[in-house]
């Protein structure tokens, strides 16, 4: 059976520099694929290219069989890909509610109560300027904002960055629920190895713009030394 999301031979870069040199990866519906790697290996570039924020020079990106490579970012979003960017990119000066509404604008979707029940902090602060939220709350907002458009796949770039350690576990639970209960596929870029290993059912290690190591959940224990060797600085 084909995976929900299939990427084959993705090539992209800035100007003349080729950052991604043929990336292959799969994400299943309800699955969590975690992309690891040292700084500067092309993880964020991969997500940007998949979202269409950086043009793909070559390769194929399929969601449920629909080819997305080469489309404008808003078309890729509307096809069912949710975006939770690095640094969260909350719309400052807009209320929490407006931020959530923005997530649904291009999809003709409105905010529903079920989503708000899942993020009680956001429900409490609906009218507050989103830039006054704490880092953890902003991260919840970024995730909720992406869910308003009812995506089939979420791209998340370092969601635990800048969040106090006590909240990281709760964030992990939120992500697990989104994948296992809602059946949304997650492609997660993460520096936090423990979180990645605890959450993912597939771990990819990136080096120099390529996926150099693929480990399925069942083989994680055996592959740990190899993983740590590749990620050590």
């Amino acid at each position, binding site marked *: 059976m084909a995976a929900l999301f299939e990427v084959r031979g993705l090539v992209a870069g800035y100007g003349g520099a080729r950052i991604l040199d043929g990336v292959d990866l799969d994400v299943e519906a309800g699955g969590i694929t975690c992309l690891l790697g040292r700084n500067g290996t092309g993880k964020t570039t991969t997500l940007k290219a998949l979202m269409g*924020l950086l043009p793909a020079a070559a390769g194929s990106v399929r969601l449920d069989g629909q080819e997305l490579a080469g489309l404008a970012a808003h078309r890729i979003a509307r096809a069912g890909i949710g975006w939770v960017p690095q640094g969260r990119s909350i719309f400052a000066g807009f209320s929490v509610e407006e931020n959530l509404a923005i997530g649904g604008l291009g999809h003709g979707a409105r905010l529903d109560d079920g989503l708000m029940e899942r993020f009680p902090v956001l429900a409490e602060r609906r009218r507050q300027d989103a830039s006054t939220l704490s880092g953890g709350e902003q991260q919840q907002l970024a995730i909720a904002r992406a869910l308003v458009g009812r995506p089939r796949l979420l791209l998340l770039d370092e969601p635990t960055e800048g969040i106090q350690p006590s909240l990281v576990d709760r964030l992990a639970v939120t992500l697990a629920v989104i994948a296992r209960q809602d059946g949304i596929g997650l492609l997660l870029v993460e520096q936090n190895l423990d979180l990645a290993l605890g959450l993912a059912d597939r771990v990819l290690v990136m080096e120099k713009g390529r996926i150099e190591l693929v480990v399925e959940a069942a083989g994680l224990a055996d592959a740990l030394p190899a993983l740590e060797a590749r990620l050590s600085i």
Partner: protein
Amino acid sequence: MGADLVLALLDAANFVLAIILVAMGLMVVFGMMRIINMAHGELFLLGAYALLVVQGLGGSFWLALVLGPLVVGLVGLLLEVLVIRHLYGRVLDSILATWGLSLLIRQTVILWFGPQSRVVAAPFDLRLDILGQPFPAYRLFIMGVSLAVILFCFWLFHRTRLGLAARATIADRATAEAMGIDSRGLDRLTFAFGAALAGLAGVVMAPLLSVDPQMGLGFLIPAFLAILTGGAGELMGVVTGGVVVGGSQSLVARVASPAVAELVVLGLAILVIRLLPNGLVGQFRRRR
């Protein structure tokens, strides 16, 4: 004395609202897209000539009031697709290119209609008695149109989903795109809307002015000053700037002379821009 004061304030309010009416489209385009549209005055001109053509063909002012903004909005759409879209993020280039467009439009108008000035009729020639002084009702009509445009813009940008999408796109274009918002489509729409506002202002103001190929300039300069003084990028800024620039110019012109008034307004604008580079409203927002 009381009547004089009321009339002076009414004149000032009239001038203020006329400036805001002209500046609104300019503001929408600059605030939303960071394009300084030097051709705004010529889009205003096209609105006035639309009225001239419609009246020449026997149509009414009210028909022109609908057709003018529509036609100028379509011209704006065409300009966006052909020229403006290549200029995003290039403020200086946008000044040069839109200045070129302004020459092109003005010369085309001269080729078509000739350089002479013409007169168009107001839809009604009523004079109201205000504290014993006659005041043209058409000026009150202009004030009403301007207020309606201001309220409509606030409603559009702050109360509708389209406005939310437009504001999100200005705030963070890439993220807005990744949320599924068609930022290119919004660019086209916003520029066309700004042009349509210029066209509307042209139709409405034409009966008060002589319609000639240079008519755009008289209101364009105070409109630019109003935007810079109030704070570019904020709807509230253009309203505040319009009040400061238009109000002081009109009142000083009354107690001194129009030439002194222009000097005072320019001096005031330079002072505000020097001391508050983000404008009156912009400065307030940033300190919040």
